[in-house]
């Protein structure tokens, strides 16, 4: 793709996707919804829309962790674990010590995971992929130990979380009460806060950021701690939605959260992207899942198709947008 030659239609599409990433993404989302409506006439309803939003929100929140870390060229594969641990601790501790202390302990545990990630990545310079996977493994081990020694008193899912996770108001999920301010804050912070700008700067050129006086380790430590905190909050929301405390509650969301960010136009190499696209990416994935479910394909086939579609869409987006 040279600058002088007339751009091919594909190159032009790539350009649009870099400059206005939301436009083609929303187009794709509408296309998917249309296909769904054709395959299953009558499926579209207010209830369906509310349900899709409800399912997409925890995914979109975990994908915020991926978006923020990917902006610096990193990734956080411990978000599913952090969310699961926060949910499990809340549900099992609430009957023992009461709801607010249980939530405090749960979020503190998530923050510890983030601090360990941040320490390894910022100070020891371990690659984020390895560091967060390693931390996730250790944390899961700790959870198993905890489960053997502490459980007995049963499980209590706090009312407030049930309201937030499953309740609806005027057909819309109550989780929007949490998600709308959250999304607004992330989108504001990525452009209008010093911290957000530094994420882009580090992802675009870490050496240049350093030469400009940025202590990169401070940013990494804060970022990974924040990421785990977001994951912990998501775990609480997810607990209210799924209504059971399991040892693998949010683990299946790990890879879809990465996929949502990538489909949403955030570069895995850092320096480019944003949360707006990620939210649409999460919606696309959710609609895709419900499409495959409604097509009544057996579980195995559905997973294979889901994986293939994620890979195809991601490869296409990267091909169109990553120019040297």
């Amino acid at each position, binding site marked *: 793709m040279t600058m002088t030659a007339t751009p091919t239609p594909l190159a032009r599409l790539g350009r649009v996707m870099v400059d206005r990433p939301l436009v083609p993404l929303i187009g794709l989302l509408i296309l998917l919804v249309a296909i769904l409506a054709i395959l299953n006439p009558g499926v579209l309803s207010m209830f369906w829309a509310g349900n899709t939003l409800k399912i997409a929100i925890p995914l979109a929140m975990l994908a915020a962790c991926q978006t923020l870390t990917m902006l610096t060229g990193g990734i956080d594969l411990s978000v599913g674990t952090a969310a699961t641990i926060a949910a499990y601790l809340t549900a099992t501790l609430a009957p023992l010590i009461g709801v607010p202390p249980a939530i405090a302990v749960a979020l503190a545990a998530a923050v510890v995971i983030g601090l360990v990630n941040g320490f390894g990545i910022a100070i020891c310079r371990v690659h984020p992929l390895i560091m967060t996977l390693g931390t996730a493994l250790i944390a899961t081990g700790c959870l198993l130990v905890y489960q053997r020694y502490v459980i007995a008193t049963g499980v209590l899912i706090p009312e407030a979380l049930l309201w937030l996770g499953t309740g609806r108001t005027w057909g819309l999920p109550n989780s929007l009460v949490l998600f709308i301010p959250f999304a607004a804050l992330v989108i504001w912070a990525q452009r209008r806060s010093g911290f957000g700008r530094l994420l882009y700067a580090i992802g675009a050129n870490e050496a*240049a950021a350093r*030469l400009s006086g940025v202590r990169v380790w401070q940013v990494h430590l804060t970022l990974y701690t924040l990421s785990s905190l977001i994951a912990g909050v998501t775990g609480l929301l997810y607990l209210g939605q799924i209504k059971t405390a399991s040892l693998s509650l949010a683990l299946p969301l790990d890879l879809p959260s990465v996929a949502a960010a990538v489909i949403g136009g955030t570069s895995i190499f850092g320096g480019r992207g944003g949360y707006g696209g990620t939210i649409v990416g999460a919606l696309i994935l959710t609609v895709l899942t419900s499409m495959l479910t409604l097509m009544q394909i057996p579980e195995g086939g559905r997973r294979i198709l889901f994986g293939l579609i994620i890979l195809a869409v991601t490869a296409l987006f990267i091909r169109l947008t990553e120019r040297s």
Partner: protein
Amino acid sequence: MPDAPSDAVLDATGVAKRFGAVQALKNASLQVGAGQVVALMGANGAGKSTFVKILTGVLKPDAGHVRIRGRDSTVSNPAGARKWGLVPVYQEPSLIPDLSVADNLRLGDTAMAPFRHWVSELGLPDLDPDALIRSLPLASLRIVDLARALAIEPDVLLLDELTAALPTDLVERVLRVVRAQADAGRSVIYISHRFTEIAAICDRATVLRDGLTVGDVKIEPGIEERIVEMMLGGSVAAAVTEGRTARPLAAAPPRLSVKGLKTGTRLTDVSFDLHRGEVLGVVALEGQGQDELFDTLAGNRKASAGTVEVDGSPRTFSHPADAIAAGLTLVPGDRAHALLMSRSVRENIAIPLLARFRNWGAIRMGEEAAKVAHAIETLQIDTRAQGEVRRLSGGNQQKVTIARWIAKGVQTLLLFDPTRGIDIRTKRQIYSLVRDLADQGAAVLFYTSELAEVRLACDRAVVIFNGRVVDVIDAKDADEATLMRAAYGLTGKVPA
């Protein structure tokens, strides 16, 4: 120009090469006979490295021919050059770090026995062939690279700055071996900034200037001055631009006082004072320690000895943020190290404003916009493509790297070759900007690879050779010949 030896082993004639708008080589020639060591010389930007790349087949010439033993070069890559009889040894060793010495030899199809012979001849008899390349010190790597080249028994050996950063005892051995090669009838092209080495082993010197071969002289006592003149050519007369008279220095303690600074192998002992309102030039040939000096002052590298005082109080920098806090801000030589290529002009200029923890919160957008606009205005940056810095021209990119520190507020500006590779109009804007900054009380350290710039932009210049300050020259005396002589470690001042 004396006639080329008719029995030239290597004969390059009329070589020309253009890169876009830049004519890097116009008419370069080089002849090397059997049993000769010929020095290839030229100031920065004379086209030396382009010429070397053409000789070794990395680049194809637009015009002219290169012949070895009368055969036309059909070389299209370095491996081809080797088959054809020319083997280069570069300043950066071309060895794979994660393989052992022996594996590297195997990769290059080089026999072990002659290699061993040359390694011990060159002063490293104990070299372990199973040692990983990455575990060896740089000096040993140079020896390994040279021994490998010798083991191939090439017709023509091309040595590019081979002795830079070698310890003296090894230099002596290397020079002896290179000379012995020539005495045994082979041909050597020797590239070096060091006149003492050239005097010791070379038979002739071919001098390049502005892409032309301007001279081919026999090496004899006193030839250094002539070579310097040839490298400068008419440019001495051309640079009649008025030299600045040195400004009276403030009585206050110097803004920046550097004493006995040392780091790595290249920067051995540098001291100077830089005052408010002063532009201090730094003149040095490539690799004399100036990169390390700027990196150390910017907090990007630690000094192993010496002190840095800012406004009279000693400082140590363990991170660029420390240097910035002390008012020392760097514009690095390579723009790619300074810029966020995929981000906007505004974001690039604003990072230092946000770098510190206390500025991580909400950005005061109005204030930031005003500072950025002021910096863009001061530097006259063309902002038509401001969405992504990568889409700007080289000159505008360079302006962005400087604008960043204008927005932050300049106290001591460290400019490393800020005008390299940019157009003359932008260069002039940068000189006058530097002048204005100094007049407003800033202190500027200005390394330049273009000697003529010292008179245009500086008050004084320190000349660094071999990691030390060898001379301090007032701008009014800083004609190119004087600077060049000093930069080559020859006697500093011109005899009156």
